[in-house]
């Protein structure tokens, strides 16, 4: 049995990387970010600085780590089996992200089906009669049980304007991304680059529309984070979704740069595939949001 530790592997052997400083650097960056966040929440002056520094370090460590991976790939260190490891890794990571959103959708379902009806007396009468006699419920919830503590809202936006537009934007971006993928597989470089470019553009437009929706929510509709359960669910669901669109857009920009550099080939473009899966996941989450939060 071969017991000598090897420094270089042949194509038949699974590539086991050398010790690396980037994982622990990423950990240190993450804790810096969180400590900054917590201190910012507690109004300590250095909080925001630590948070931004942490964010910068997170990006730096991830860049360095992925650069190593790209280099190893280019040196043909990776065999098919390594490729499968990356694929399974990305798939199960996206699965865990789905469950994260599921917890917020769960909160939405519970609030609409249980809390609000209970408080307005639609399920059992006593909570309503004895504790919240003036609360009438309904969804969207514009008037809360205690409107002094949670301010409620005047109105909500028209679903068939910005939200519907956003749906169109994201669905279209899925199409352009698929076109880009075809371009990659068929070695049509222009198609690949244009496809990626328009996907990013559509994603950025989505973010811009979302920002304007937030602005209108605050200024026009009086719908704020402090507006009660409707505002809480609206901002956190769309907020986390927007954060994931931002992450996905960043990934797409990196893919665009790498495509321009000619990094990808039809046989070897895992990073592109992983980004595409992530983008489609973000798109599906929006569809769920549109249907279950805005529409039904």
């Amino acid at each position, binding site marked *: 049995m071969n017991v000598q530790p090897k420094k270089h592997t042949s194509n038949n052997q699974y590539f086991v990387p050398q010790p690396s400083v980037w994982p622990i650097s990423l950990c240190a960056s993450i804790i810096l970010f969180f400590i900054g966040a917590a201190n910012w929440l507690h109004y300590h002056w250095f909080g925001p600085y630590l948070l931004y520094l942490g964010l910068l370090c997170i990006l730096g460590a991830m860049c360095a780590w992925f650069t190593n991976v790209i280099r190893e790939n280019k040196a043909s260190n990776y065999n098919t089996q390594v490729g499968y490891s990356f694929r399974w890794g990305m798939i199960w990571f996206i699965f865990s992200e789905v469950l994260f959103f599921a917890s917020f959708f769960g909160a939405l379902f519970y609030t609409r089906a249980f809390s609000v009806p*209970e*408080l307005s007396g639609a399920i*059992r009468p*006593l*909570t309503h009669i*004895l*504790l*919240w006699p003036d609360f009438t419920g309904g969804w969207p919830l514009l008037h809360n*049980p*205690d409107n002094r*503590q949670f301010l409620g809202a005047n109105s909500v936006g028209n679903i068939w304007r910005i939200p519907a537009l956003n749906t169109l934007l994201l669905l279209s971006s899925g199409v352009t991304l698929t076109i880009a993928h075809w371009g990659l597989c068929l070695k049509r470089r222009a198609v690949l680059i244009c496809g990626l470019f328009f996907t990013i553009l559509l994603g950025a437009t989505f973010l811009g529309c979302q920002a304007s929706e937030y602005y209108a929510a605050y200024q026009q509709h009086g719908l704020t984070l402090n507006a009660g359960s409707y505002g809480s669910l609206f901002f956190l669901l769309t907020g986390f979704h927007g954060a994931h669109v931002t992450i996905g857009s960043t990934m797409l920009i990196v893919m665009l740069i790498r495509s321009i550099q000619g990094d990808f080939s039809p046989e070897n473009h895992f990073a592109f595939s992983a980004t595409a899966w992530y983008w489609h996941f973000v798109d599906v989450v929006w569809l769920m949001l549109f249907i279950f939060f805005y529409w039904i």
Partner: protein
Amino acid sequence: MKSRKSNLSYLQQSLTGIGMSMPISAMAEWGINLPKGVTPVSRDIYDLHMLTMAICAGIGLIVYSFLIFILFRYRRSRGAKPADFDNNSTLENIWTVTPFLILVAMAIPSTLVLIDMEDESNADITIKITGSQWQWHYAYLDKDIEFYSRLSTPTEQIHGKAKKGEWYLLEVDKPLVLPVNQKVRFLVTSDDVIHSWWVPELGVKRDAIPGYIHESWAKILEPGIYRGQCAELCGIDHAFMPIVVKAVTEQEFTQWLAQQNKPRLTEQTDDWKMDTEMRAGREHYMRYCAACHQEDGSGNPPLFPALTNSSVVVGKPISRHIDLVLQGVPGSAMPAFAGQLSNAEIAAIITYERNAWDHDTGDLITPEQVQMRRLKTSDTRATQP
């Protein structure tokens, strides 16, 4: 085990040092089972408990006997040689289906008891129970009677400065008085955090959720005194908010109802002197305020501000101090005491705070001053969700 001995001897030293004699042999018990209780529900639960325990004990006996047999019979030191089978579908099916059938047998009576427990209809009397930090509030809904019920064990006993009484931590100033043989419906809620109203002998436990009412019921079959405790962690005095239910005959209950007065919110007194007020104030402060603001007034900032040399406590206007105690600080842990304490009690507490520790304001607050602030702010009830 040398270290363990020195742990024990340290404890013994500290006990002797605070002059406590342990009433352990007199009071401690070796009871090992659930009480049967005095309501149909508690008795049903007891029966279910015994049934399940018996079934588990039976299965355990079989499984453990078999295990002990195996451990002796099949030791290598006895020369046992290993067999080579590694499955037997029939056997595996048997020990899949049999437990299932046993579970079904347990599920049927359990379901029936559960359905009965959750049926609060046709009640004879309804009590609204509100948990707060750290006391219970009882309101007899159709009878316009309500009061707070607080731990009445003296703090000296808790801190080892006096011998512990028989009902240490299980006694209150005003028990919940209920009639026997009547179906009592409990509407349980909370003013602040989640508490839980639990009286084992009544077979009742219901979480007190702020902003929601959850129901339970009991029909007490025998007169007596039944004690319970809060059963959901609710802060520092979670262990110090017991429940006492005094079940009396229907006749005695009617008499008790008649004797109840309205809450003494406007009590006045002419004999208001500094030294008596400091004594009373200290006693009330220790009971209602010291849990958060500490005996020495140092609090635990930032959640529980220090009172010593606080501008509210030693500065002017005094009305600001009175208002803070009456109305609390919404959104914080400081409750409104307007509905819980009388003018005399609040006046004594504020007098104490303004003159205790190294404060020497010389302010003597009267119940009339407190009443004036109540009327000014027209806020005579504790904050409700």
